[in-house]
């Protein structure tokens, strides 16, 4: 009881501690690929500390919602991240919500962010919020199609159960899984405002989405938002890792050896995924905003196709 509580608490602390490091790693990879030296991988921590020490400059007509939103967004994302099996399945509270609930928690954070973007009443906030709403409207159905395909295969929408199923030999070779993976990657890129959907590194582009919404934030509020974004990236990579690469996942309460293997495997996954993401972002151009619906629609179609093909292979 105490041990599993510790593992659960450790997981919550771990995701929080690792999130800025992952962001720093992705930035480092991108910098090296662009033949720059790049900042240290620990730079995001320094940024956070700097932001936390600064004063908040609040727009004159900002309401309480604007001030509350960063903390609530962070809390929703953190709770969602706590429900994902990162290095071990079957954590103490993993039954609190399934994959749908995790996505809905992220949706709640996004709901607050889009509202906060509109609170000051500037055109930039509005453009960001309305585009985020459009992207979400396509990303969420695509995500759900993926969940349907996975649940059809694993018989559950609970991440721990899915991960355990994917680790067993019962999976077999399935084209549907490949389709679901591709769709998931597209959705994850969109959810995290990465290239080609959005550019996390600039304020100076008219097609910006996420950065436009948070334009008015400063100081500790901005720190919370940056941390939330980093946490969300870590969360998505963890979900992909535990579903599609469930190698080395420890079973809850397995003992120190299993946990250590789980931790090592998790770290390896993060390193690889971060490097892949950095490479991908360097290799590809940002899309025009009204090309994004086609991309996400493609993800939706892939999800649907995965489900249909599963029907074929299971129905015979």
């Amino acid at each position, binding site marked *: 009881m105490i041990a599993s509580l510790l593992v659960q608490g450790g997981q919550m602390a771990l995701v929080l501690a690792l999130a800025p490091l992952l962001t720093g790693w992705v930035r480092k990879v991108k910098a090296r690929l662009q033949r720059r030296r790049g900042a240290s991988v620990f730079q995001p921590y320094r940024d956070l500390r700097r932001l936390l020490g600064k004063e908040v400059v609040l*727009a004159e007509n900002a309401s309480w919602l604007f001030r509350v939103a960063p903390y609530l967004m*962070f*809390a929703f994302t953190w709770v969602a991240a706590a429900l994902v099996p990162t290095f071990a399945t079957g954590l103490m509270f993993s039954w*609190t919500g399934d994959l*749908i609930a995790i996505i809905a928690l992220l949706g709640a954070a996004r709901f607050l962010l889009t509202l906060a973007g509109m609170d000051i*009443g500037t055109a930039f906030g*509005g453009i960001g919020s309305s585009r985020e709403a459009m992207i979400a409207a396509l990303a969420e159905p695509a995500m759900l199609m993926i969940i349907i395909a996975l*649940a*059809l295969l694993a018989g559950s929408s609970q991440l721990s159960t899915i991960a355990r199923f994917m680790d067993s030999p019962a999976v077999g070779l399935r084209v549907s899984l490949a389709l679901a993976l591709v769709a998931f990657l597209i959705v994850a890129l969109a959810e995290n405002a990465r290239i080609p959907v959005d550019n996390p590194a600039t304020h100076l582009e008219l097609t910006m989405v996420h950065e436009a919404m948070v334009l008015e934030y400063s100081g500790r509020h901005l720190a919370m938002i940056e941390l939330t974004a980093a946490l969300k990236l870590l969360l998505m990579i963890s979900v992909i890792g535990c579903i599609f690469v469930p190698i080395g996942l420890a079973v809850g309460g397995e003992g120190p050896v299993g946990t250590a293997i789980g931790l090592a495997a998790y770290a390896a996954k993060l390193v690889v995924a971060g490097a892949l993401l950095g490479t991908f972002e360097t290799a590809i151009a940002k899309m025009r905003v009204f090309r994004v619906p086609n991309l996400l629609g493609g993800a939706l179609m892939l999800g649907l196709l995965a489900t*249909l093909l599963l029907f074929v292979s299971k129905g015979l």
Partner: protein
Amino acid sequence: MPAVPSHPTLLAELVLLAIAALLATGLAGAVRARARDGRVLVYGACLVLCVLLALAGLAALAVPPTGLSLPLFLPWVGARFRLDPLAGFFLFVVNLGGAAASLYALGYGRHTAEPERVLPFYPVFLAAMNLVLVAADAFGFLFAWELMSVASWALVLAHHHEPRTRRAGVLYLLMATLSGLTLLLGFGLLAGPAGDYSFAAMRAAHPSGWIAALALMLVLFGAGAKAGLVPLHVWLPEAHPAAPSHVSALMSGVMTKVAVYAFVRVAFDLLGAPPWWSAVVVLALGGGTAVLGVLYALMESDLKRLLAYSTVENIGIIFLGLGLAMAFRADGDAIGAALALTAALLHVFNHALFKSLLFMGAGAVQTATGTRDLNRLGGLIHRMRVTSFVFLIGCAAISGLPPLNGFVSEWLIFQAILLHPDLPQWGFKVMLPADGALLALAAALAAACFVKAFGIAFLGRPRSDAAAAAREVDGFSRAAMAGLAALCLLAGIFPGVVIDALAPVAHLLLGTRLPAQLAVPWVSVVPVAAARSSYNGLLIFLFVAAASGITVAAIHRFASHALRRAPAWDCGFPNADPITQYTADSFAQPIRRVFAASLFGAHEDVTVPPPGDTAPARIVKTIRDPIWDWGYAPVAEWVERTSLTLNRLQFLTIRRYLGFVFAALVVLLLALALWQ
């Protein structure tokens, strides 16, 4: 509990007495409408009676069904009434909404211009809805149904001076007549050749496949027209917003649920087993309605019309759940059917809560600013603190966000879809995942829609002087809205209570029920098995509260406290006019462009004058409603043309009229001769 064993019909008698008292209140309202105490008298009495009826509904969930026969209406038939768990659940929902609306109206009713157009009909409307739920024969049901239509029609016309309201009234009356007619035909088919119109007889008779399917489709049409299923929804966004806001709350939050009740009663109780493809029809209609309804809502910039379209969406979600239940039942999977039915009924309950809340909030906004046009609102969060907070809760709940109640019912419907989308019929195999995608699409679009509703109306800077001068509304209104918001949160944190309360309904209709949720540790919701899926609203709520609490505490302990107010940065644009803010239309522009370009033919014409020309640039937005253009307009045109042609018949000589009569007689005789 009022159910004394020696007097089993006591509960039903109490309910009927309360309904009679509501009718009497209507009479009192007619007499004392202009008096000072008329409003308090009528709404106070309605509040008390609704609370009583809601309690009776709760009690009916716990006791076995009781029937009652009274010598009313047709003397040789009498009127039969029955109180069973299904009726009890809907009694609870209807009267919960009714009680909240009455409480709200105690304050809001002060602004009614012509109370004599509201006060007499309001209690009658409530009474009629209750009567529909307890009627146990087709006569009583249809009588109450039509009474409900007429009373609500009278309420819609409360602001009869506006031409748009009068148009809404005509449209509503037309659709209500159509709905009553199809229900009548449906019941006629169900009664069969013996012609016994009591529900008990219909339950005993098992009509053959095609008759059952036809009856079901007729009832689907009748109930769907009242509930607002696409393509029968056209009247709803006209009529619901036209009424005073507490009546809008009743019509959208509650009356549509009475229509759902009618469908559930027939499809799951009276009909034996309709053919499996009828479930496909319901699933397709439900999914389509959900997405189209919310797309319409996104295109809307009138707050109350937006809410009305969102009602259409939620009705779609409910019917989607009901269709799932029918599909599982046709497949012989009772647990799956119970899960889907429970999910749909839970959504009925949830939608009654948050839609009533949102309509009341819209009423409060209208009272405070005199407008419902989102493009003239803004910044109300600074001036209407309570209203904006509870409206935000309602928006989050209807967008299906945890830990509020809207998420639980949508999650349960998803679970029903995930349970096994591989039903043997191929129609279902394709339909179920597609419906899952449609439901997710509707949920995501609903979130966008309510970000727009809240963000434009309450956030930002005021877009008109009226919005800048808004004042908070009275205490009764705030109390009613706060109560509903609290219920939204409670139902989201403890969904197991509602799910368990629904167990008798599922047992009555399907012979099985979901496992008791309150027995699960930590009050989780576990629809089937813990390994499959579980959700715990309480823990999510506690976790989020704890996580944000810890964060705030840590930040305030370790980080800088400094805060400075300054003009908005806005990338360096100084002192922009409030008119540069995003409006309701511009917020919806990306979604309009992606989804509505082909569906609604939405497009924008931008005219930019050449350099040097001082003429203003223009942007013109056009949207067509395909359902109206291709469905209703041709029918209306045809009716118009036909009646113009027939109009000539009014100006004939006596001899010609006699000739018509004579010809008709001869034709009938000929038909008779040929028949033999």
